[in-house]
């Protein structure tokens, strides 16, 4: 698609304006992380720390065992990521590509799980996992990923699978392929971009999730980064300089992952020579 020069300039300007607006929280976060506590809230705000408090990072990351938090979070995230990508894509295939009676009804029932506010399922869930003896372990946080990885992802993948033309499937059937082969050889490669999106969301969601770890964990040594960030809040006030520094440190890996990932899933796979 080659837009005209005018369209390009207009678009570019729009992009810059929007980005400027969107980048504010991140810039605010970064500059606060390098500031002395007394400077963070001045009105009107100062954008350049005077002086640069690099030691905010050192202090923030050593006051609490962030090294341990990092490792813990990493373990959980990888565990969830693998399970989610694997099982959500098979499930989506089952809901999108295989015709069977009751398929839509079952899908609807699974969707309904997202419609009940978590506040009221929190305690029964907790009690269930506790009864199984998994309180203060990572099981409640990781195991569900291997059972579909969340209906959000299944729904997303289903939508994409539905857009893939059936011609391939039909040709493959004629050749005697099984559903497994169709899944592995046709659908999977064609949906690479969306799978990376799922992986990305899964990574980011788990990285920042604090409610799960809060409810299911009790020992400090198991805590994650998201919980660690919350620890800077005191009874009457928060240690903002350390909180911002720690937040910046926690967000950085996400930014890196995103930068890498977006290249893969957004350079799109064009479906060549399909129609006719």
């Amino acid at each position: 698609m080659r837009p005209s020069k005018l369209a390009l300039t207009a678009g570019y300007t729009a992009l810059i304006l929007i980005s400027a607006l969107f980048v504010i929280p991140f810039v605010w976060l970064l500059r606060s992380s390098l500031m002395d506590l007394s400077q963070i809230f001045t009105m009107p705000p100062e954008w350049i720390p005077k002086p640069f408090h690099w030691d905010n990072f050192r202090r923030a990351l050593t006051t609490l065992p962030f090294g341990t938090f990092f490792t813990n979070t990493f373990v959980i995230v990888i565990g969830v990521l693998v399970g989610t990508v694997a099982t959500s894509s098979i499930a989506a295939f089952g809901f999108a590509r295989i015709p069977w009676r009751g398929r839509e009804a079952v899908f609807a029932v699974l969707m309904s799980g997202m419609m009940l506010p978590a506040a009221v399922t929190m305690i029964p869930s907790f009690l269930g996992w506790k009864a199984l003896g998994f309180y203060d372990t990572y099981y409640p946080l990781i195991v569900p990923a291997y059972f579909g990885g969340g209906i959000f992802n299944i729904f997303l993948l289903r939508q994409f699978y539905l857009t893939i033309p059936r011609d391939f499937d039909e040709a493959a059937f004629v050749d005697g392929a099984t559903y497994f082969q169709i899944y592995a050889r046709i659908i999977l490669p064609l949906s690479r971009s969306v799978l990376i999106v799922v992986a990305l969301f899964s990574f980011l969601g788990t990285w920042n999730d604090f409610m799960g770890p809060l409810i299911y964990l009790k020992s400090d040594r198991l805590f994650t980064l998201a919980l660690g960030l919350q620890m800077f809040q005191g009874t009457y006030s928060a240690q903002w300089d350390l909180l911002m520094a720690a937040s910046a440190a926690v967000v950085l890996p996400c930014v890196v992952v995103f930068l890498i990932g977006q290249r893969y899933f957004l350079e799109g796979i064009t479906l060549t020579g399909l129609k006719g």
Partner: protein
Amino acid sequence: MSRRRKSLSVLLALVMMLAAVLSACTKSDSGQGGGNSAPPADSAGSESAGGDKPGEPITLRMTVWGAPEEVAAYKTAIAKFENKYPNIKVNLQHIPTDYDTKLTTMVAGNDEPDVAQMESASIAYPLAEQGKFYNLQDFLSSDPEIKQDDLVPNITYWLEPGNIIGLGPGPETFVLYYNEDIFKDAGLTPPPAKASEAWTWDQFVEVAKKLTIDSKGRSAADPGFDPKNIKQYGVSIGTWWGNYSNFIYSNGGDFVSADGKKFALNEPAAVEALQKMADLINVHHVAPSPVQAKNIPATNIALQTKKVAMAIDGQWATAGLAQSKVHFNVGVLPVIKEPTTTVVSGMFSIFKSTKHPKEAWELMKALLDPDAAIDLITAGTWMPAYRSWYTDPDLLAKWTENLDSRPSNYKDAVVDVLLNHSRQTPTGYVKNFNKIMDIVNPALDKVWLGQQTAQEALDSVAAKAQAQVQGRRDVEG
């Protein structure tokens, strides 16, 4: 293959569901105590339940919230405690956020700690009303080391007369902060520190007006004053119950009547206090409205950047002020009728489900010890819980002399008021406080914004609020 998988999965599903529902049911079965853990110990269990032999290793669990320095103070207390009792180990569980949600979940799962930090404004009383806590009165009466009077007033929380469910590790009072430089430059006398010399409300308003400056340099006392372009406010007042309760009490009012049966915020004394505060915002224009108040995130920054000349806030702000390097000092609050301060504080409670009540009590005492929290106290965040630290000159000096957080007038402004003119936080004695405030707060929103008078607003919700009134905890019946 799929059929076998299906039946297995159905089986697993049933088990899981059963487990979830059963656990919920066991907890909620009528008449049953706490499911899995040890049967609840008797109240007044001053003798240890289960008869532990001395010297047997014991683990106590304690939950707290708070920033790293607060947790550090608890850890210091615990270290001293463990030194004194080598057979006892304390497992400190720091709940970083959503404390109430987490604790509620723990209680639902029979996973209560032995000692827990509690907040009277949230779930402390719901728990207490279900009899989940020990009556600390029994411990206090039978313990030779500590008496009720050893503690400063108003950090003791009663469920009802004779039943103490929590003790606070340290009080927090309210004071009038001010920026010394602003007063010097304006040539005005700063607020007095002694309660006997406290400003009357009118005197207070006069000074505040002189110190409210618009962008052209006119003060609120000048005729040409422009209230839409204020550069510096005379005073910042918070609009939460902690702040305005001071003035309601000062005027002889209260949240509920003395017998606890009637809603009292629409009574003349309370209404007058609330109206006076709202007038600071809307009539005299000396205080930022709640709208503008969010502009000023913290007292220390507001004073440091000279956005306000004075600020009414809790004692804990001295910590931030000390760090901000502003020349601040404290005075007593202005008085409508009587000098008063409300005392707020958290508390520690002992769950009845504990297997070691005696040891838990010893832990409590260690937590109340000001020496353990000395760093927090000298930083300004906390105040000591023991009366002796206010009356004994040496102990007093330990936490008020030569500290950035304790300017010259601190002793006068704080000590006397706390010991002689303080009132308990309304969350400590008004039953069903939260539900009442759910109704009152929206009405007060209108008052602060100048849309209604205090009398109108409170009268309009009085009936609904009255329906929520359930009595007081400091009177019988």
